[in-house]
């Protein structure tokens, strides 16, 4: 049993279908009579729609329907919403501009959907989309967040004066001002967190099917949270009431946050299916993904840190402008606020913090949570600040961190979070040892002789995961609760189905969740199936994001297993005429402890369903449900050390070593956890070195394909050296913290700290492309 239980490196149950080509993604789905959609999108970043002429398109071969926003509105389809209310420091609510699933009067970014065309084939739909004639009156656009509030900047939404969505504060202002007054040193920094495109490898897709006879809708969609999609589409978009709408997220090819949100396309495909009488499928091409998937990051920040004469931190002052793009996406307001400013204390004991965030509209794609969501922006800021400060003070960056680490828990920060467990010094020690930090200067010298600049950089990150206690997030403005549900069904033959509201799109839930059940009920992995991603099967769930499936989703399973185990023991005790307190579960059977009396698991299950001989008053069957609401966030933390070699002649950076020492609390499957770190770190290296999203001044996206946007490829990254330590989370029954985002949060500052160490100048922005590094080296020389 041990080999399949908690803590074992079990190979994944779900792999077979993916390695044999039998995975089932939305684009693989075929429904009888299904037709294909193409969207006509705005070629302008900002324009008024003067006229839409669909007559030529309607006459094209194979065309079934050409539908506009006016028709959509006439049918009462609602606007898209942002589900997290933020109040500005003056008490006013955030300024949410209207976002119609198909634009009616105005377009606000290149890619804004205007018309849907439905035709027999995908090719015909696209041909006809080309024939739709739209007359625009172009308006001036603004794409740079730092200029969006300027006097005379184009106004994007009438609701948001000066494009300002909110002006929000968090922290203790008076204490922070006092801290800066008594500071011996103040380190200042202006920093940009570059805009990224998530780029899950499976492009978004939606298949909407309206069944006229049943007056029922089915939506297959590339979603990380199908239940939230159903809830939002019924409650806000008036697509259909929940009992008339089934949402299925089958195999989903990666998400990284970008598939949390409910986008215009799934709403429009469902509506268009009713309108045209045929099932309607839309699959994004990659350029559509670049244009319309929610982007990530895009912060402009000024920060100041106050230290005393012994380099202890006294206070931290942060002013950030967050670019939310042309419309407020579903969780866009939470990302630069409660997922960012709440982490500004990092791993450090900082008595006074004041964070101010101004969120603005620009004529760019909507920006929302992308792997890490707010926490990478906080970690990048803090960990650059620590490194730069140490260099200014002429002390070791490791020692500056060590001196300021939080060392006792629980620790209440000035920015809401209550860190409940951690051991930051251990992660730092482990990382320094694994990186052979002591031998670095020798390696630097050797590189110098070979004409290369070698540098080393640290990053001691902390994040908040397992989001989150429903009452807490509710008080902070969340429109939903962030619990999770689970149902454990023991069938009459003893096999088990676990229904979960979490959604797996690469995380391996079918394996780790089954490991948990096998470990608890001592039954083989093969007899356990994990069911997810279908609102007709699983009643309700909040989905997968924020590294919450382990800490919250699995905890819900634990709660349901508690109930299953208790009832199973009652039945077994009754069958053996024993005391239920004496029953233990071992090796596929329920035994009377200390005797050889036992009832096999399957026999107990059968007894539950035959119900011929159950304890008096017990209901037949064995199926239990639980909803689990966490007690706190969890706080994964760790230390990353990156070593680079820069060629001063070309500016080319090579990552020669990358070490990660993480504290994820307890771990169910180390193999899967390592995979999450590998992927996260690579995305972070992508942000640091390669991925730059570039709009020109008129709002055209210049990086809208893999020819222009540099994705990390195998040759860009090394193999990684990973290790973990564990201070179990006291906030959930499994002691899990979560591991999905850590890599992307912790790695960018480590890379940039290493490069700046190598080239001897702090003046570099992400992505640190060879051109920028070369120029920075040259500029520093002159």
């Amino acid at each position, binding site marked *: 049993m041990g080999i399949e239980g908690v803590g074992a490196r079990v*190979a*994944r149950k*779900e*792999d*077979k*279908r*993916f*390695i*044999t*080509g*039998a*995975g*089932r*993604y939305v*684009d*693989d789905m*075929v429904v009888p009579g299904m037709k294909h959609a193409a969207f006509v999108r705005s070629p302008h970043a900002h324009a008024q729609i003067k006229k839409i002429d669909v007559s030529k398109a309607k006459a094209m071969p194979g065309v079934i329907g050409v539908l506009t926003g006016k028709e959509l509105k006439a049918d009462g389809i609602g606007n898209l919403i942002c589900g997290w209310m933020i109040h500005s420091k003056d008490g006013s609510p955030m300024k949410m501009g209207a976002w119609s699933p198909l634009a009616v009067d105005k377009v606000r970014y290149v890619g804004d959907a205007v018309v849907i065309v439905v035709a027999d*084939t995908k*090719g015909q739909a696209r041909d006809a989309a080309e024939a739709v004639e739209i007359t625009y009156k172009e308006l001036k656009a603004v794409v740079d967040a730092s200029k969006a509030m300027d006097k005379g900047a184009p106004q994007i939404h009438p609701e948001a004066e000066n494009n300002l969505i909110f002006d929000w504060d968090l922290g203790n202002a008076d204490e922070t001002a006092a801290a800066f007054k008594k500071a011996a040193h103040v380190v200042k920094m202006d920093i940009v967190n570059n805009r990224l495109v998530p*780029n*899950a*490898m*499976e*492009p978004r897709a939606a298949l909407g099917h309206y069944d006229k006879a049943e007056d029922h809708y089915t939506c297959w969609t590339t979603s990380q949270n199908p239940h939230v999609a159903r809830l939002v589409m019924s409650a806000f978009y008036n697509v259909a009431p929940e009992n008339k709408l089934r949402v299925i997220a089958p*195999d*989903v*090819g*990666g998400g*990284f946050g970008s598939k949390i949100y409910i986008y215009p396309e799934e709403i429009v495909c469902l509506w268009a299916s009713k309108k045209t009488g045929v099932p309607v499928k839309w*699959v994004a*091409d*990659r*350029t559509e993904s670049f244009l319309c998937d929610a982007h990530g990051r895009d912060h402009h920040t000024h920060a100041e840190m106050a230290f005393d004469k012994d380099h202890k931190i006294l206070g931290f002052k942060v002013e950030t402008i967050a670019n939310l793009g042309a419309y407020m996406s579903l969780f866009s307001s939470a990302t630069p606020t409660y997922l960012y400013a709440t982490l500004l204390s990092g791993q450090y004991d900082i008595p006074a913090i004041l964070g101010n965030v101004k969120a603005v509209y620009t004529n760019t794609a909507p920006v929302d949570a992308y792997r890490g969501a707010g926490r990478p922006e906080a970690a990048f800021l803090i960990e650059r600040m620590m490194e730069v400060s140490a260099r200014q003070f002429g002390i070791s960056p490791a020692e500056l961190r060590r001196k300021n680490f939080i060392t006792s828990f629980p620790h209440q920060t000035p920015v809401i979070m209550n860190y409940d467990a951690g051991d930051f010094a251990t992660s730092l020690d482990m990382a320094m040892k694994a990186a052979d930090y002591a031998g670095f200067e020798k390696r630097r010298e050797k590189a110098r002789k070979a004409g290369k600049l070698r540098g080393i950089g640290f990053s001691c990150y902390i994040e908040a995961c397992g989001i989150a206690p429903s009452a807490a997030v509710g008080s902070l403005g969340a429109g939903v609760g962030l619990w999770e549900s689970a149902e454990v069904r023991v069938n009459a033959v003893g096999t088990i189905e676990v229904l979960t509201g979490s959604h797996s*799109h*690469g*995380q*391996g839930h079918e394996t780790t969740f089954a490991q948990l059940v096998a470990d608890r009920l001592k039954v083989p992995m093969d007899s356990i199936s994990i069911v997810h991603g279908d609102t007709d099967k699983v009643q309700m769930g909040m989905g997968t994001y924020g590294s919450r499936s382990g800490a919250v989703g699995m905890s819900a399973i634990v709660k349901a297993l508690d109930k299953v185990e208790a009832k199973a023991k009652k039945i077994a005790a009754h069958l053996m005429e024993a005391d239920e307190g004496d029953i233990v579960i071992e090796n596929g059977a329920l035994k009377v402890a200390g005797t050889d009396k036992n009832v096999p698991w399957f026999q107990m299950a059968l007894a539950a369903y035959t119900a011929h001989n159950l304890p008096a008053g017990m209901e037949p069957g064995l199926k239990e449900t639980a909803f689990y609401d966490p007690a706190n966030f969890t706080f994964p933390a760790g230390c990353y050390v990156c070593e680079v070699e820069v060629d001063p002649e070309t500016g080319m950076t090579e990552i020669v070593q990358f070490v990660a020492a993480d504290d994820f609390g307890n771990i169910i499957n180390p*193999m*899967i956890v*390592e*995979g999450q770190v*590998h*992927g*996260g*770190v*690579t*995305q972070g290296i992508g942000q640091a070195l390669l991925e730059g999203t570039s709009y020109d001044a008129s709002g055209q996206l210049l990086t809208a*394909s*893999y*020819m222009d946007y540099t*994705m*990390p*490829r*195998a*040759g860009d*990254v090394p*193999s*990684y050296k990973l290790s973990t330590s564990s201070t179990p989370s006291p906030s959930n029954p499994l002691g899990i913290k979560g591991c999905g985002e850590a*890599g992307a949060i912790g790695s960018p500052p480590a890379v940039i700290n290493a490069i700046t160490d190598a080239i001897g100048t702090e003046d570099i922005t992400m992505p640190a492309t060879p051109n920028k590094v070369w120029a920075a080296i040259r500029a520093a020389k002159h």
Partner: protein
Amino acid sequence: MSQVSLTVNGRQVSGAVEDRTLLVHFLREHLGLTGTHVGCDTSQCGACVVHVDGKAVKSCSMLAAQASGSTVVTIEGLADGADLHPVQAAFKEHHGLQCGFCTPGMIMTATDMIRRHPEGLDETTVRAELEGNICRCTGYHNIVKAILAASAAMGKAAKGKAKKAA
């Protein structure tokens, strides 16, 4: 319209397609072989790699009509019945996949890579050879590990066979 006729996974198939039909669309939409994926529009991501006459080809970079007369193997045709191909088995054993979307293309590329390097592979070569395949989940770490392991296992098996034959 073009009439195409080819062998796919050992089976003779034919059909009439629009001239502009790409091989990947013919496989997915005409034959229902949806294991081959489309991840980009610019022949960069490699999710659509299949074998055409024994060589790895991005099936989005070829018209179905051009493939007429060829022998094509897709991810669905790689295993020997219930026995996984050694590359498939290595991807599973070494956790070389997460969401699975890039996986078929990765496996078809890797199989071709190992065939072209009977002398064996090292990490640098594998990483360089993977240039045309993008994965967003795994960070490549375990994909590289899986390919090296499969290459070693297949080299060993080939040596064993050669010894037996001698």
